[in-house]
């Protein structure tokens, strides 16, 4: 291993966080949390969405100003009022959403924010230094590639390189692996681990993936509802301990019993489908698959491999460039009449944008599939709002949707509750074909368990379910048959019984070799 002469120059700082509190209005997002990170530590910060992880690191990085408490760096109290201050102190953050400039080259992204960058950039000298820097790094990228052409894994690497280049020796990684294949994730976290073991950097890994925490972190701090819920050496904690710290004493909904049943006839068939993306580049190529009654077909894949475009075609939001879709044995043209007659239901990703009308109420959004039929429309013309509200109240109770009432605008709901609302609408009438994409993205463990139970229930009831998900664990838990999508093609298929995580991971990555 060529180790990083440049990195060896400075040691990472020791950082201790002392009783930080941050309030937003009436909400206390962070309540008296302390944490200590020794130089060279690989520290995991674990918690559900909304537990306060992001708030904590944003206070540390100067994006937010804490209401109480302080940060000590190398034993001295540090005033971090802006991300610039944090950078000067050697603290760097690798964000969950890439903060690279897509239209610029790798080199341009790296010199950005370099201190002492003159008014005119001396490119030959800068490039020479960047080349030397790259040669020292555990992973490398071509300087001239435009960032928009990099894969998700390469972008993540560039984010990390950028921080190291700026001289950060204390890195906060915010859910760095959410868009990576398992192989890419292992590679990047493995390299970070080597750097921490050598005492060259400290890492705080924000995650909700227990597997990663167990494999790479030395210590863990768990937050729940803004409070410190536990901490310790990873080696001395079991997975059950960590889950209990994360979710508290509440019970998770038991996963639905999966009835053994042999699937029926194919209800949804895709034949030779090709689709182009927004730039006219083929996103889906010659895709053929069948989903039969009473089975869940799971499509795994790293985001950006054509899943979004595929679902958009099934939803009628995008035109296919070749091939067609059949439903119930007939050609399916994505009209409202067909959806209704065939019982085709769909939960797309980002449902607030793709399956809801933002300004309308929860009740109205719950009625979008059926507002124009009896009994919600008298004679097909006059809306019966009382009926609409009554039905909505029933669904809100049945699907545990947290809302101020049926009349609250849907955009006031949290992400999980929007997801539940759409699922309630799609499952409230008989669904023969159910298409779901990333149904549990960004939800807390309780909501995840509940939504997965609904999906399995639908399958047990004879619905043909097509599940498109970037979360491999979700696919492994739910699907009867697993397909892998890469570069717009189905590159691998395996029945549930023979599914192997490593094997699937390799096929997910296959186009990036």
């Amino acid at each position, binding site marked *: 291993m060529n180790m990083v002469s440049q990195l060896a120059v400075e040691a990472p700082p020791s950082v201790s966080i002392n009783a930080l509190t941050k309030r937003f209005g009436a909400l206390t997002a962070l309540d008296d949390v302390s944490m200590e990170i020794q130089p060279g530590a690989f520290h995991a910060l674990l918690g559900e969405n909304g537990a306060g992880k992001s708030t904590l690191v944003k206070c540390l990085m100067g994006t937010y100003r804490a209401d109480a408490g302080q940060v000590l760096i190398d034993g001295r109290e540090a005033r971090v009022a802006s991300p610039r201050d944090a950078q000067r102190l050697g603290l760097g953050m690798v964000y969950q959403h890439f903060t690279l400039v897509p239209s610029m080259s790798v080199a341009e992204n790296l010199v*950005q924010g370099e201190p002492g960058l003159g008014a005119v950039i001396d490119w030959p000298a800068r490039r020479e230094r960047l080349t030397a820097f790259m040669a020292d790094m555990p992973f490398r990228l071509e300087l001239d590639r435009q960032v928009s052409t990099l894969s998700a894994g390469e972008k993540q690497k560039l984010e990390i390189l950028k921080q190291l280049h700026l001289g950060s020796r204390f890195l906060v990684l915010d859910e760095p692996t959410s868009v990576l294949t398992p192989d890419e994730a292992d590679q990047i976290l493995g390299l970070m681990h080597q750097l921490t073991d050598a005492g060259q950097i400290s890492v705080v890994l924000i995650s909700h993936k227990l597997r990663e925490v167990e494999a790479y972190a030395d210590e863990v701090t768990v937050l729940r509802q803004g409070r410190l819920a536990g901490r310790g050496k990873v080696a001395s904690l079991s997975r059950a301990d960590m889950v209990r710290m994360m979710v508290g004493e509440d019970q998770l909904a038991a996963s639905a019993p999966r009835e053994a049943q042999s699937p029926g006839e194919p209800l949804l068939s895709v034949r030779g489908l090709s689709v182009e993306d927004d730039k006219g580049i083929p996103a889906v190529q010659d895709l053929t698959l069948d989903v039969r009654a009473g089975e869940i077909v799971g499509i795994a894949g790293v985001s950006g491999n054509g899943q979004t475009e595929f679902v958009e075609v099934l939803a009628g939001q995008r035109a296919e460039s070749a091939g067609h879709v059949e439903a119930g044995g007939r050609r399916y043209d994505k009209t409202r009449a067909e959806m209704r007659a065939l019982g085709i239901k769909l939960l797309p990703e980002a449902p607030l944008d793709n399956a809801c009308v933002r300004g309308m109420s929860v009740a109205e959004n719950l009625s979008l599939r059926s507002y124009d039929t009896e009994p919600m429309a008298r004679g097909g013309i006059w809306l019966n709002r009382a009926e609409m509200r009554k039905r909505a109240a029933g669904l809100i109770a049945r699907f545990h949707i947290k809302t101020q009432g049926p009349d609250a605008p849907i955009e006031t709901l949290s992400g999980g509750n929007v997801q539940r609302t759409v699922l309630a609408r799609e499952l409230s009438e008989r669904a023969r074909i159910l298409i779901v994409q990333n149904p549990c993205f960004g939800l807390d463990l309780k909501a995840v368990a509940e939504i997965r139970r609904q999906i399995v229930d639908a399958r047990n009831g004879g619905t043909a379910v097509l599940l498109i998900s970037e979360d491999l664990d979700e696919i492994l838990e739910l699907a009867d048959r697993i397909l892998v999508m890469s570069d717009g093609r189905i590159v691998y298929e395996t029945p549930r019984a023979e599914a192997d995580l490593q094997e699937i991971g390799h096929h997910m990555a296959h186009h990036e070799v």
Partner: protein
Amino acid sequence: MEGTELGWWGVLIAVIGGAIRVSTPYLFVSLGETLTEKSGRVNLGLEGVLVMGAMSGYATAVLTGQPWLGVLVAGCAGALLSLVHALVCSLPRVNDIAVGIALFIFGTGLAFFLGKPFINPSAPRLPDLDLGWWSDSPHVQSALQISPLFLFGFALALFLAWALKNMRWGLVLRTVGDSSEAAQALGYNITLVRIAGTVTGGFLAGVGGSYLSLYFPGTWNEGLSSGQGLMAVALVIFARWDPVRCFYASLLFGGATALGPALQSAGVTANYYLYGAAPYFLTLAVLIYSASPQRALEGAPGEVSISR
């Protein structure tokens, strides 16, 4: 008909000469709009800024007798007007397109109101450079009478193309326009950069306006611009936010505008108004060409509202 002796060559030379003469306002406005859009905002009000620049430049030249001072004042007036756009758009939840249209109407209205007394007096014109001295043909000579502003605009296009890649502010501007998340993470003041981009863009558009009133056609009246500021915004899309391509596209639009007069000088007088509409047809054609329900605009800054 003296134009007929050269026949279609005469038309071609006249179109080229016209392209050079007419393109300068397009060039300045499109370079200004490129800067503004690179910072992540669209300023549709540049038509108003252009007219305001034409008026204030003309008025200054009439009052002081100094045409170059008029150019400077026109630029400052443009910058000032664009500052309004920049500040209003810095407020939360303000739509830059709507503000731009308001500024367009406000700018032209204000210029007509303040410019009433200056319709009759004549201002000293900006000087020419005679680049056609080597030719005997009066057509070539008149086609190559070139304003220093045109050459300055050409140099500016080259400089901006270089600066966007090689100067610190160029990187900052592109970062802010392409990804506000990245800009935030780097600690740039997004609002300030966008205000600077809009104001500088307004300055250039104002200078473009002074060319209209002080060089070609060289008078001040209310029909002076006839939508050139708006067309220049469409031109930026066609040029894919590249200053050098803005230069070529400006020549193309200038040539289209010069087509009618050139044909007339060659003796083709039928359909004069139809040829006069050539730049508008060209704008439509360019927008249809670059529009597609399937494709996003390539090269568009990520933060610009038209590409989101």
